[in-house]
């Protein structure tokens, strides 16, 4: 097998024009849902995008799934720029990038049998014989811990955890390079989550697939990912290898997020970082650093006027977008230049 390609996201930007109504007047404005975001996902690894609602994680995922067109920037899988290809190359990209969504009750068509759901990516994308398809369906169903004869049943006959396995089997069927996992365990019961997360990790090892994990639960991110990117208002504010980030969260927003996370034991006490207010509207994001109105460590005017850039810290694959670390940085993050 040839080496698997890396997914490269370069300066990805998605702006949505919106109409604002004030009384009878309508004005145009722009929502910067994703703003100049860059990252890479090497084969067989997991990148977690963490952040609160409205930070742009889902828009990023949609762009990668080719469900939406970026305003600027590019998404490359190997040499293929997904938004610049058509025909066969586009179909092949769609085959190589699959997704598992949060809610297995709405993501599986209730009128289709499991076999049809799982084989759909194969039927749509490439000519294969019926026998090949049947064999592949049996193979992936087995890989996710279901029986081959479960293929004849309908989704309603399965529990939430089993449904998420069906969704994963379907995502795996076409032999993808990358699977977008959008909050894949948050709708599952606590006792089912661990087995599902373990399954995701085992299959990654088995098939060499990479994951883009969209998640709000930092504990899940720590368990599942090799690298974490923290997003706030459409921008990546900090990016690092998972253990580096947990050892040394540096951006004030990341620190606040970590402080807000629920403890694993009643004796764990964390420094309380009180964030005032809520995430501002992405329609009219604050000038300068988008986090400055809520930042407990604001250093002054520079935060209000000059947007910080994502800079690489000395001594590790760890980048932060904050004026506080401007001087300590080793230079701009290479992925963004």
């Amino acid at each position: 097998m040839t080496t698997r390609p890396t997914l490269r996201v370069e300066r990805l930007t998605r702006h949505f024009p919106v109409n604002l109504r004030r009384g009878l007047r309508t004005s145009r404005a722009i929502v910067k849902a994703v703003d100049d975001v860059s990252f890479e996902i090497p084969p067989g690894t997991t990148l977690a995008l963490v952040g609160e609602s409205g930070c742009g994680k889902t828009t990023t995922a949609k762009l990668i799934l080719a469900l939406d067109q970026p305003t600027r920037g590019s998404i490359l899988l190997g040499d293929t720029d997904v938004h610049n290809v058509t025909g066969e190359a586009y179909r092949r990209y769609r085959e190589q990038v699959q997704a598992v969504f949060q809610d297995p009750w709405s993501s599986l068509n209730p009128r289709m049998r499991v076999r049809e759901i799982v084989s759909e990516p194969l039927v749509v994308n490439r000519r294969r014989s019926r026998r090949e398809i049947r064999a592949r369906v049996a193979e992936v169903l087995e890989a996710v811990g279901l029986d081959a004869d479960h293929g004849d049943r309908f989704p309603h006959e399965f529990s939430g955890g089993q449904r998420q396995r069906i969704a994963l089997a379907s995502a795996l069927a076409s032999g993808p390079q990358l699977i977008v996992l959008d909050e894949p365990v948050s709708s599952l019961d606590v006792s089912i989550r661990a087995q599902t997360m373990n399954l995701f990790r085992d299959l990654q090892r088995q098939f060499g697939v990479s994951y883009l994990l969209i998640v709000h639960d930092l504990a899940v991110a720590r368990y599942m990912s090799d690298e974490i990117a923290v997003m706030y208002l459409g921008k990546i504010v900090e990016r690092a290898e998972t253990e580096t980030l947990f050892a040394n969260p540096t951006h004030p927003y990341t620190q606040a997020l970590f402080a807000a996370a629920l403890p694993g034991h009643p004796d764990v006490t964390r420094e309380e970082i009180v964030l005032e207010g809520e995430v501002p509207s992405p329609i009219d994001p604050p000038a300068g650093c988008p986090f400055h109105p809520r930042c407990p460590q604001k250093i002054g005017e520079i935060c209000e006027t000059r947007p910080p850039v994502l800079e690489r810290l000395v001594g590790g694959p760890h980048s932060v977008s904050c004026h506080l670390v401007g001087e300590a940085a080793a230079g701009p993050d290479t992925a963004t230049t």
Partner: protein
Amino acid sequence: MPRPANEGHNGTAEPAEVILDVRNLTTHLHTKRAVVKAVDGVSFYLRRGETLGIVGESGSGKSITALSILRLEPRPAGRIVAGEVLFHGEDLLRKSPSEMRRIRGRKISMILQDPQTSLNPVFTIGNQLTEAFAIARREIARADLPRAVVDVLRRVNIADPERRVGAFPHQLSGGMKQRVVGAIAISGEPDVVIADEPTTSLDLTIQAQYLRLLKQLQERTGVGIIFITHDFGIVAKMCDRVAVMYAGKIVEHGPVRAIFNHPSHPYTQALIASVPKIEERVERLYAIAGHPPKPGSVIQGCRFAARCTFAEDRCRREAPLTFAGTSGHPEHTADCWRLEGKA
């Protein structure tokens, strides 16, 4: 379960008075196919000023337990068939509907998971709070209501409350809406607030704000809180005591540290081991095999036996008794045959 002891946990402070004492509560749901024993003989108590967590997965009966306390079990399917809910010594299950109406919202109030559905979309929040005050606090003169509304909004940390009273629910963010629901819940100065997954729909930093707010309100008013949740993180942060529910029964109960340090029931042990932690990288999470029993299925013996790694023949035959003091703490109890003779 042993009744609350009279000496304090650590011998220094007298435990506060028990305000709510639920005994053997049993609620059945009558469906077309079967009678589901949603709450099957559940007992617990709540002291003034403390927080009790009721943890369980979906279908464990934790929400039906909460609703049954207020006699709000889903009708017509739900029926409380046995038990007592002693509130200041009086059994709520014997109260008339009009007596119950005077208790709900005033003595015991509730915060539900989704603030979007708890608030009426066609009235302003000022309107809805005024209504809550008019019902729960008749002693407040009509002319003073607007001030009371603004005051309570300020108490739940809503900025600029004078302006916000004119806002409709859709104009507020999820976190703000949930704080308005909190304001309604405390408007009657209740003794007990039942919070059913109140932060599940909130973002992480907003959840932290809200949990802090609940703690502040508790410190100020001494309200007892029953926290219904599936999240052990919330239990660790908020609760003094925990009751773990599985398939309609409390399988383990105890002070929060006893539960975390010495979980005695295999289900609790497995649950705690299966949750990823933010404080450390776990090499591999323990995964509980199988799934919870289907509602309405008849189970002989222990409900967890089918998924339990320690299950023996006896577990599948006989339902386990409740054993106390297994971790050395008299209030720590668990329903598991393995504890027999150890306490």
